Structure formats: structure tokens, C-alpha cells
């Protein structure tokens, strides 16, 4: 959807809303020109600037491309922004290489003369952090990762500036998380996977021997996410977020599906299949590595819900359950919060020949709807 906002500049803060009404922050620097610049929007991003030719009327059409510059309104900035210019009947359209940044001001300059300024309004859609996983407040000493789930796409590449881990005394602990570039985001940029330094978790590796595990059994910690973290439109998080947790013993057991309890739904209903996992498992993998097939092997469509601190997996089908036999299929890559999967531990002691890791790709639990 394209939205257009017209802003009349050099006209004491007068805003003419065009097409759709948007809240636009009143420009602090008041302009007096009657010339109207307008912004071209695409998916909430300012992808173009429309400059009426009347603003540039003293210039010959052929000379426009050499004479006009769009630049960031910032003291000392004389750099023209990279982009494409296109000339229409009565408008010069500038499309920057990347969308304009919300909250920043831009200048239209004609041969060193400042013609107009425009501010890209900030977004009113404020991002929130909707969850930190594992959601338990008791976590193993060898915890491998956290997931941060946001309501909107966030800016990538600077996450560790906004996340800190504090000990009981309120001191920030350095070198806890692994600084990865590129960061591990989902395609929508709404879920960040953050690893605790695996070198410090793996037994006998140097970081582990020297610094110990990032977390210590019996200690209390506070994970803090700063409200300065911007989304992809530059709007910062609604508030600071914290997660308090206490650390317990090292988890040295691979999760096992043998102990899972299945509560089958009744035939012809849309009641969920309930699976009690008996332990907290990985928030994302539970949604991605577990599925249900009918007797013919067809995958059942529906929705997964997690509850009881990721110890309960429920599946609500899109269509009522027919009578029959079903298979709960679990990929072996399903992990617990310490990175132990169904086949092997996070770090396996290869001198222990009794525990050979399984090569099984999928584990299956059969159940019936009667």
C-alpha cells in the first residue's frame, strides 16, 4: 500500500495530509517555503521523495540531475545520498538506495542553496518484546541459548549493545554471549537466537577451563533488554524488559520421548492433542521439529501451542479428528535448553564407549483417536 504525506515547508508547521491520515510530528525547524515535498511510502518505509519542479523552476530541466542533491540534514554533512533520480511532468522523484530513516531530517539542495527540508515521521507502531525463552526461572548451568521474540521486525547486527546479563550484585557480566555476525534472526527479523559462549560451556575447551561456564550453579541472574533497541523503522522498544532466573545443576541428559505422556482427543472434536514432555524443551524446535501424521502418513494441519514453561505441547487440528491411528513424529534435532538433542549430548565424551550416539533421524510415538 502506498501512502503519501504532503508537507508544505517553510509554512509555519502546516501539515497537509494526503491520501491517508498519518500522525506526523510537527517539524521543529519551521520552514517558510510554500513548496511541497512529499514522501513515497511502501510497506511502512519511506522509499522516495517527490520534489515539485516548481521548487526548482530556475533550473533548466536538462541540468537538474547535476544540480540537485538530497542529503542528511546534519551539521557538517555535505554528502549527497546515493539513489536514482527520475523526472516526471512536474515532479523530480528521488529514490534512495535504502529507505529514508524515520525520525531523521533531509535537505534538498540546489547548487549549494538549501531549498527545503523534510522530516520522515517516526512510526507510531511501537515494538514490544513479547517473550524471552526458555520461560522457566530455573535454568541449567550449561544453558546454551535464549530466544527473544518481538512484535515487530527489529534492527539487526547490534543486539549485544542492548542485552546484558547482571549477577546478584547487579554487575554486568562480560563475555557471556557469543558475538556472531550475521546474527541469528528468523526471516521476519522478529526472533533472535542468542547463544551463550559455547566455548565456555564445552568441557575442557580453553574458555571453559579459564573462565568457567558463563552461568554458575546456585547464583541468581537478571537478563536485561534495553528500551533503546530500535525496530527496523527506528522506533525503540516500549520499555526495558527483565528476566530473573536462578541457575541449577548442569543438564547432562539427552531428552527422551519414552517418558512423554500423550492425552488423545475425542473423535470428531477439535480438542487438542496434549503431550506432557516432562521437562522444558526448546521453544522454537518444539514448533518446528514435531508433527503429527495419520495412518496414511499424511501430515495433519493445525496449530501448536506451548505452555507450562515449554513442558506441555498441544496440537489443535484444523479439521475434527477422525477415528484412527496417528503418529507423533519428532525429529532428533529437538533439543533441551542445554543443547542436548534426542541423539546426543551437547558435548559427548567419546572415551565413554557405552554411550554411542543414535543415528535415528525421527522418533515416532503412536497413539489413537477412538
Amino acid at each position, binding site marked *: 500500500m502506498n501512502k503519501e504525506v504532503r508537507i508544505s515547508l517553510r509554512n509555519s508547521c502546516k501539515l497537509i495530509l494526503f491520501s491517508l491520515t498519518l500522525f506526523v510530528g510537527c517539524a521543529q525547524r519551521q520552514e517558510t517555503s510554500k513548496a511541497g515535498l512529499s514522501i513515497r511510502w511502501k510497506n511502512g518505509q519511506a522509499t522516495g521523495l517527490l520534489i515539485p519542479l516548481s521548487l526548482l523552476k530556475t533550473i533548466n530541466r536538462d541540468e537538474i540531475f547535476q544540480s540537485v542533491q538530497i542529503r542528511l540534514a546534519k551539521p557538517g554533512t555535505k554528502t549527497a545520498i546515493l539513489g536514482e533520480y527520475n523526472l516526471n511532468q512536474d515532479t523530480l522523484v528521488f529514490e534512495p538506495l535504502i529507505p529514508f530513516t524515520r525520525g531523521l531530517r533531509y535537505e534538498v539542495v540546489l547548487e549549494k542553496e538549501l531549498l527545503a527540508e523534510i522530516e520522515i515521521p517516526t512510526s507510531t507502531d511501537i515494538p514490544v518484546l513479547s517473550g524471552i525463552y526458555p520461560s522457566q526461572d530455573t535454568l541449567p548451568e550449561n544453558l546454551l541459548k535464549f530466544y527473544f521474540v518481538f512484535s515487530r521486525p527489529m534492527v539487526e547486527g547490534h543486539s549485544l549493545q542492548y542485552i546484558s546479563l547482571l549477577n546478584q550484585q547487579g554487575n554486568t557480566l562480560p563475555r557471556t554471549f*557469543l558475538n556472531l555476525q550475521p546474527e541469528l534472526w528468523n526471516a521476519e527479523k522478529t526472533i533472535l537466537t542468542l547463544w551463550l559462549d559455547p566455548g565456555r560451556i564445552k568441557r575442557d575447551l580453553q574458555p571453559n577451563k579459564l573462565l568457567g561456564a558463563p552461568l554458575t550453579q546456585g547464583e541468581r541472574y537478571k537478563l536485561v533488554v534495553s528500551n533503546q533497541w530500535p525496530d527496523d523503522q527506528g522506533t525503540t522498544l516500549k520499555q526495558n524488559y527483565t528476566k530473573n532466573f536462578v541457575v541449577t545443576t548442569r543438564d547432562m541428559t539427552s531428552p527422551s520421548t519414552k517418558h512423554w505422556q500423550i492425552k488423545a482427543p475425542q473423535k470428531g472434536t477439535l480438542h487438542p492433542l496434549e503431550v506432557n514432555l516432562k521437562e522444558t524443551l526448546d521453544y522454537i524446535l518444539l514448533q518446528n521439529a514435531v508433527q503429527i501424521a495419520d495412518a496414511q502418513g499424511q501430515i495433519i494441519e493445525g496449530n501448536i501451542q506451548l505452555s507450562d514453561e515449554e513442558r506441555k505441547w498441544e496440537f489443535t487440528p484444523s479439521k475434527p479428528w477422525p477415528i484412527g491411528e496417528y503418529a507423533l513424529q519428532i525429529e532428533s534435532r529437538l533439543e533441551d535448553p542445554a543443547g542436548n538433542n534426542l541423539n546426543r549430548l551437547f558435548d559427548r565424551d567419546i572415551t565413554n564407549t557405552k554411550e554411542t550416539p543414535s543415528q535415528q533421524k525421527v522418533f515416532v510415538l503412536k497413539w489413537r483417536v477412538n
Partner: protein
Amino acid sequence: MKKTFLSLTAAVSAALLVAYTNRTTSVLSGFETGTPEVKSISALAFGPEGVLFIGDSKSASVFAIDTKDAEAVANAKAVEIKNIDQKIAALLGTEAKNITIQDLVVNPLSKKVYCAVQSGSGAPVLLKIDSDNIQPVSMKDIKFSMVALNNAPAEDAKDQRGRPLRVWAISDLNYADGKVMVSGLSNQEFGSTFRSIAFPFTNSQNQSSLEIYHAAHGQYETNSPIKTFTTAELNGKKFLVASYTCTPLVLFPIEDLKTGTHVKGRTVGEFGAGNSPLDIITMKKGEESFLIMANSDRPVMKIKFKDIETYQGALTQPIKENYSTAGVPYVSFPMVNVLQLDKLDDTQFIFLQRRANGDLDVRTSNNRSL
């Protein structure tokens, strides 16, 4: 006369044959013309004939583009750009905090520097740096070829609705001996994928994917993800030299990297606590070859190939002395906070460095420091 005519015919035929062979052996011959839909730029690497490989995590593909920048220059001028992040931000009309320099590579023919930038809004930008002139590389109507990474998110895409899809974030990309090698990290399980893809790309995808393991001190085995890698010839044999998210430096014979195999590497070095490798390149001085490795929490290191060749151990003993490193010896350069490296010419390499005052500069190291 007849003899002369025959000789002439033979010569012309030979010339035509050579021309034909040259034409068909160009890696560009199978390229199509169009606008590749690059959704993200995670890693860059140059191949033959000025071909630039772009690792795109978001679309789970590798693009090969014809830069048309294939004129060979023997020696390059040193590259020195202060505050490159601010310069690029000004050109893109935003602030430095909204961009990330994802990779920096040198075209081995023209010695020009290419730079991948991710912006907060998600749009990837490819820039070409010639002295202090920074220009965008247009993706419109260019010659390119692409390959989808097998079993990448596509395998999950057919999965049930609403499930978070797995992303393999491309951590490094290299080209050697007709093969594009890609390492990737999962945003879900603690796993990695490594692929070797024949180039020019073919329809019948010639890809090998493998599980790579390394053992720490002969006792604990993990399949930790590869962060960065290069290739090297040691004792007349080709090796993959990989560095992991948990720091160890591991060697794999290239000939062992076959599809579906469980390859175990030989750990030859551990380089310290709380440290993550960021980039590795190979350089030569006289007859001696080195690895140059940039690290998150340690200075840039130089490791002699000769020392790796003569080091026959596999770190079977845990490190006894605290704060020491183990395995092959190395020399630390007085260069800290180096984020990216690439070979500029036979005697120089460029590096991206965060200076003590917070500035982000591109600099060149000369032969003396090798």
C-alpha cells in the same frame, strides 16, 4: 602452395578452436542477464574472471554476479579510509548505528574493495571502493547465475502453516579450485551446514553437505558450527582450515569432504578464552605461507603453514597452564579489534578495525608486518 594452404587452414582451424574453447570455458558463459533478487548479503567472495559470489541467508542462495571488473592490476595502492561506517551512512542517508558492514573483500584482479552493508531497514547494499570513492554496485540488468542451497529453508517451507522457519545464516563463503564452499549456522538447533558447490553452477546441483566434527583433547566431540574458514595446501595436500564458534582451529582434508559423510577434523590449535574467530586469510612472504586470523577478543594472529605441517598432534592433552594457548605456535600482531580481513595483493592485506577512540577504519598492512 597447396602445402601452404593446408598449413594456413590448420592454423585458422587451430585459432578458431582456441577461440571457441576460450569462449566456452568462460565461467560467464552460462550467466543470464537480469536483476537478481538478493534479499541479504551475509558473505562475499571473489571467484575467477571478476565474478563475485554473494551469500544470501534470507533467500538461502548463493548468487554469482559478473562485476565486469576483471582488468588485472599487479600491485594495489594501500587503502586507508577513516570512519568508513560514517562515510557509508552519509551516502545512504542514515546514521552509522543503523548499518552493519557485513563483509569486505578485494577483487583479486582489479584490487578494488567490495563491501557488503546491511541497513536497519533490511535492504542490503553492495559498494565498490576505489581509493576514497565509494560507489554502489548496481544489481539492475547484470549478468548473474545463482544456486539455491539444498535442504535449506525450502525443506521446512512445505511444513505446516504458522511455524517458524529455520534459517541457515551464512557464516562464511570461499571459492577455491572450481568450488564454492559455504558454511552456515542454524537459528534453531546448535548445528551447522557446510556445502561445497561446483562452479559454474549447473541445474543438476552438484552439492555435498556434510557433518563436521571436531574433538577437544581427544575426549569431547561436538559438531559445533564453523564461523570462518579458508583453504590451504599443506605438505602437498589441500585442506579446509576452519575456525569454530568455540575458537579451535581444525583441519580437514578436502578430499574427505564428500556428501553425507561424518568428517572428523584434526584440532591443531586453541586460541584463548572468550574469543571467537572473525576472519581468516592466507598470505605469503617469500616462500613462506601464513594464516592471518582476526579474533573477537584477541589480537590478529599469524600462523605459519610450516608450523601446521610439522604439528602432527591433535591436541589430545588438555591445556595445563592457565591463560596459555595450545597447539601450533602463533605470533600476535599489535592489531586489536580487527573485524574483517582480505588479501589486497601479494604483499598487503586490508583490514577493518574498530579503533580505541571508537572509529571504524579500513587500513592496509604492508609486507613488513608479515
